Structures are given as C-alpha cells and as structure tokens.
C-alpha cells in the first residue's frame, strides 16, 4: 500500500514577542518554523493515529521526536533549525509505512514562506523553491549587449562633434 504525504512548511523567523501584562499574568509568544505532515493511504483515507518518528540529520538512528497523527493523519513539529540537513519523518500503521525527507537549511529569516508540497512519499530537495539571484545565459547576454550598446552610443554621440 502506498501513502501520500502532504507537507506544509511554514518557515519564518523565530521571534520572541514582548510580554503582555494584565493583572499579573505574563504572556509571551514565539513564532517558530514548523513542519506539518499529512499522511494518507492511496485510497485517500487519512492515516489516523499512526505512529510518527522524527529523525534529525545528526542522528538517523534515534528518534528526535515521537508522536501520533491526529484523526486527519496530520502531525506537526518544530525542527531545530540549527541541525541543518535532511530531516526524516517516518509514519507507520498496521504494517505499512513510509518516510518523508525534509531538507532544512540554515534559518533564513525574513517573511514567512508557506510551502504546500504533496508527494506520494518524499519531496525531493528541488521541491523547495528559492528565488535565484543569478542570471540565465540569455539574460546575461542581453545585459552585456546593453552595456556595450550604451557605451557605443555614448561614444558615437560625442564623436559627432559640433555641426
């Protein structure tokens, strides 16, 4: 039997909110990056109350966290983003199981990014899309051509002299 994992990775800057005082009650809040796994059988039936084992990149032998999915087959956890690499989430139930691999890089900060990934098992690292800061070869060629054209145009203008 196959499974489908839907992963939602809310990646945001970890931040600590200031305390709110009201009649001696102190509330603090932190915004953390979390990973949500939704496991279902290929029939679409959620893997409810399935065993979940989370493995951190630095120790693939011992679970970093254990738990169970909810009635909808969902489980979420907050990875330690200082442990960079492939985090693995194993979901098992009644002799069936699968592993989802979630590459987690160094904390990037900035605005929150939501990634809704759906795969039959593991999303590949390419599933995480980040903006490219480099130019394609075509773009690079156009850029170089524009610069050269600008210089030539400027040089020709001054080469005309006074009429």
């Amino acid at each position, binding site marked *: 039997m196959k499974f489908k994992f839907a992963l939602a990775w809310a990646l945001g800057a970890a931040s600590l909110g200031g305390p709110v005082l009201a009649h001696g009650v102190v509330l603090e809040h932190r915004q953390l990056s979390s990973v949500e796994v939704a496991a279902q059988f290929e029939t679409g039936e959620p893997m409810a109350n399935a065993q979940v084992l989370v493995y951190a990149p*630095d120790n693939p032998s011992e679970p970093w966290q254990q738990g169970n999915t909810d009635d909808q087959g969902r489980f979420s956890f907050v990875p330690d983003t200082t442990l960079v*690499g492939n985090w693995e989430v194993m979901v*098992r139930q009644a002799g069936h199981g699968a592993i989802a691999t979630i*590459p987690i890089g160094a904390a990037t900060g900035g605005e929150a990014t939501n990634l809704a990934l759906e795969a039959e098992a593991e999303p590949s690292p390419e599933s995480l*899309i980040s903006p490219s800061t480099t130019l394609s070869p075509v773009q690079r060629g156009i850029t170089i051509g*524009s610069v050269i*054209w*600008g210089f030539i145009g400027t040089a020709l203008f001054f080469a005309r002299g006074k009429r």
Partner: protein
Amino acid sequence: MQRNSLKAFAVGAVGCLALGLLPGCGGESSTTTSPDSASDATANPAAGTSATGTGTLVIRANGEDFVREGFTTKDGWAIEFDHVYVSLSEITAAQTDPPFDPDAGTDLQAKAEVRVEGTQVVDLAEGDESAEPVVVSEVEAPAGRFNALAWRMVPAETGPSEDHTIWMQGTATKAGETVPFTLKLTEELAFTCGDFVGDERKGVLAAGDVADLEATFHFDHLFGDGDAPADDSLNTGALGFDPFAALARNGVVDLDSAALQAGLSETDYTTFLSILPSLGHVGEGHCREVRLTTL
C-alpha cells in the same frame, strides 16, 4: 549644447536602464534550486553520505512472520511453509543523496555503493519464529548511511529451486482438508528500494562496525491476510489460495508459471502478475519494480 547633453544622457540612460531591469526579471523567473541543506548534508555522514573507513554490511532477506510462522489467507486457508526459496542477484546497497524515492519516478543517485557478486539463493522459511532474517551475504562497505537497496530476482542456477526465481512449498489446510502445494515461479523481477522502514533503522554503518540491510518479501500481498478486514486493500487486491487449490490434482497443488498461466482464469492470472511486483519491500518501505512491469 543643452540639447546634446540631453541626448547623451538619454542614450546612456537606456543602456543603464536595460542593465538595471534585467536582474529584476531574473528574480521573477526564479529557478528551482537545492536548498543550503543539500550541500550541508554532504558533509554530514549521518545524513547519507560517505564517511571515512569501512565496516561490514550484512544483507538479509526476510519473509516475515507470515513465512516463518504460517498464516491464514483471506479465504481461510491456514498456510504453513516448508521452504520459500528466492534467488537474488545483483544485490546493490547504496548511499544516496537525495534519498531515493521509489514512488517519485526519479533516478537513484548513489554517492557510494557496494554489490554482492553472483546469485544467492536463500530459504526465507529457514528457522523458527524467533529466527533472525536469513543472511544473504556480508560485504565490506564504506562507512555512511546506506539508504537504498536494489536486487534482481533471476532463475536459480543450482539447488532445489533451480531454474526458478521463487519457489514456495508447504501445506494449506481448510475445513479439515490439507493440500500440499508447490508454486514454482520463473518470472524475473527487479526491485529498487529506498530506506528501510520498520521498528529499527537499518543501514547506518560506522567505521569498524556492522550494520544490516534487509530485502523484505510481503507474501500476504499474494494470499491476503485472514486477520485483516475483508475490505482492507491488502485483501481486496490479493488472490488468496482458492484459485491455486482449484488447480489441485489428486489433492496436490504443483504448479509452475506456465501451469498458472494456463490454469488460472484470465482475471486471476492478471491479478497474479500484478501482485508479483509488489512482493519486494525494505521492511515496510516501498520498492520500484522495473523488470516485470516493463515487459
């Protein structure tokens, strides 16, 4: 003069404008890239890449309790196996990065791999209920995380299951009737699998240490499981034992692949062929079958 200066400014500005706009275009047509973690993972032996030194990788084959202890099929036959021979060839263990996903349609990208030479025939029914999965081979391997396993099933060259890929022999009992059976298959199969999924993690090999990998066979996919609900997809997709029992002669089921093709109904034979590629697993983890499914 003022007009000429304006022209010079305009020409230069067009060039600069073109230069300035392009990075913005590049940003909008973002490309898919591997995150930083992918490159960082390569420096982490535990994350699936090679480390220094070597250890011993023990390749095992496991028919699970269904084979060692017997089980009841979806149609009520109590099965006891005397022998379940499987013939394994080109057994290859690999350290992959990214991890291989048999369901994704991507290729296995091995950072390091070791292969067991020759064809190995093992009896999955060997040992009692408490027996460890049978050892297929032991190979020296580079330390690291072996998170993929591949093997082919080819006809045995010698031994009791000669010329067959899978040989199942035992008895089936139902309503006081016991039927000896032998199912001798010649279909060739090839499995490529990802990481082991089970009670313990396998394939994490430290230098100077020993680690296991396991090729697991789910024969309940063929016969069904009487302990599972009848509408469980395991049972709805299984053949059961009734179709084989119906082909018994003088109270004995003795069938090879050709006899199955000739004797089973077209529907049952199609089901039979569709089940074979799902026999191979790594624990509970899936495999991609590429031999029979591409014929």
